[in-house]
């Protein structure tokens, strides 16, 4: 008989405590971010696809066409094209193709680059209607800003 009333008391009390917990949740503001209208700031550690970095001194990229990224890419998705020009030392970059449909974002290209010419972008809204949309020319992107 004593157990009967103890259970009744404990049960009723715990139910009221539970109601209190949810009521506090009701008063708490919603944590949802309304995505297309509101956006979270992206962490600097976010790794998107690679980009050619614009050098602040020369105003252009730092690529020396050493082909290290092209050779080291495990997914074979980088094609660097350069040519020898009169008057300049070494080769000049004419196109930097990145096939992002195959890229696994491993970051080896960024690591091996001797001149730190590559970096990750912070783009995450990537959706398209054809795979060609993800064949990037990073040199063109850099020139277009």
């Amino acid at each position, binding site marked *: 008989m004593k157990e009967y009333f103890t259970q009744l008391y404990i049960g009723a009390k715990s139910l009221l405590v539970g109601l209190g*917990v949810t009521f506090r949740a009701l008063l708490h503001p919603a944590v949802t971010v309304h995505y297309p209208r509101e956006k979270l700031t992206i962490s600097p550690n976010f790794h998107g696809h690679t980009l050619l970095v614009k050098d602040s001194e020369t105003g252009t990229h730092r690529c020396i066409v050493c082909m290290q990224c092209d050779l080291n890419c495990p997914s074979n998705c980088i094609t660097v094209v350069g040519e020898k020009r009169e008057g300049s030392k070494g080769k000049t970059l004419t196109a930097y193709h990145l096939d992002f449909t195959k890229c696994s974002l491993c970051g080896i290209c960024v690591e091996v680059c001797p001149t730190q010419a590559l970096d990750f972008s912070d783009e995450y809204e990537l959706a398209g209607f054809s795979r060609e949309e993800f064949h990037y020319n990073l040199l063109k992107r850099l020139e277009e800003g």
Partner: protein
Amino acid sequence: METVGTLPPQLLRMILSAVVVIAFVFMNGLLLGYLERKLAGRFQLRPGPMEVGPQGMLQMVADAVKLIGKQFIIPRQSSTTLFRLAPFLAFVPVGVSFIVIPLSSKLQVLDLDMGLIFIIAVMAFNMVATLVAGWVSNNKYALFGAVRSVAQGVAYEIPMLLSLVTVVLLTHSFSMRAMVLSQSHIWHVFMQPVAFVIYFIAGLAETHRAPFDLPEAESELTAGFHTEFSGICFSFFFLAEYTNMFFVCSIAVTLFLGGWSGPPLPWMEYSGAIWFMLKVYVLLFIMIWIRWTFPRVRFDQLLNFCWKYLTPIALLNLLITALVVKL
């Protein structure tokens, strides 16, 4: 206008009441559906429906249009006539119960001497509709849902009625109007708090609300008795459920919370309905609050709680009340 003049006033009254009741049932369904989803969101720290209309207010309208537009599929081996009839069986008592609810002192369709018994009897009819719906679907989940619903309904009807009878002992009347008038000095909830709590818990079980929503336990029974119903017929069950919630709360307001009484407003004979509705929606909020707080109970727990706790306490409460009234 001339046609209206030639109609007998009693008939005019009936037509008007029917129109108002049907309109109210649908509006109440829309409003409660919206509140339920919005509050569910807020209890879980998310905003709830947001996209259709300002603050998602038109979400339920969009859903209703979608449901109306859907095909009504009848399972091949079900009893076609009863399958078509079941949603209406659930829906008709909903309209009938409105007759005796005293919204305010002049806003009541008909004050029956046996108002309370009438509304309880008509609401119990909902269980028949549930059983028919589950039985004729020719679906094991639907049948199990219906059987559970009836077992639960029969069990919880007892403490519910026992707690209501204590109020009848205090007022010496079954008329809903007399119930409200007898509370002009003190609300019955202060004299009979135990009866109120028991009634409210049993009311939750009667309307199959969480934590007593076993007939619709989706993890084991898909959707329970309305598994096979689609389109507009599903929405009839949905509306019946929400309107039954409204009735359970309006009985609680009439019997325990003083009905239409409140701080006086202009035209109190009619505007008392504002106080009545306010109290009803506060109780409905508590129902929604409970739903989004407690997990579903097991079936043996459900029946144990009824037979071991609610029924004996309600019975004891009734005995004590009877003694006090007699003395």
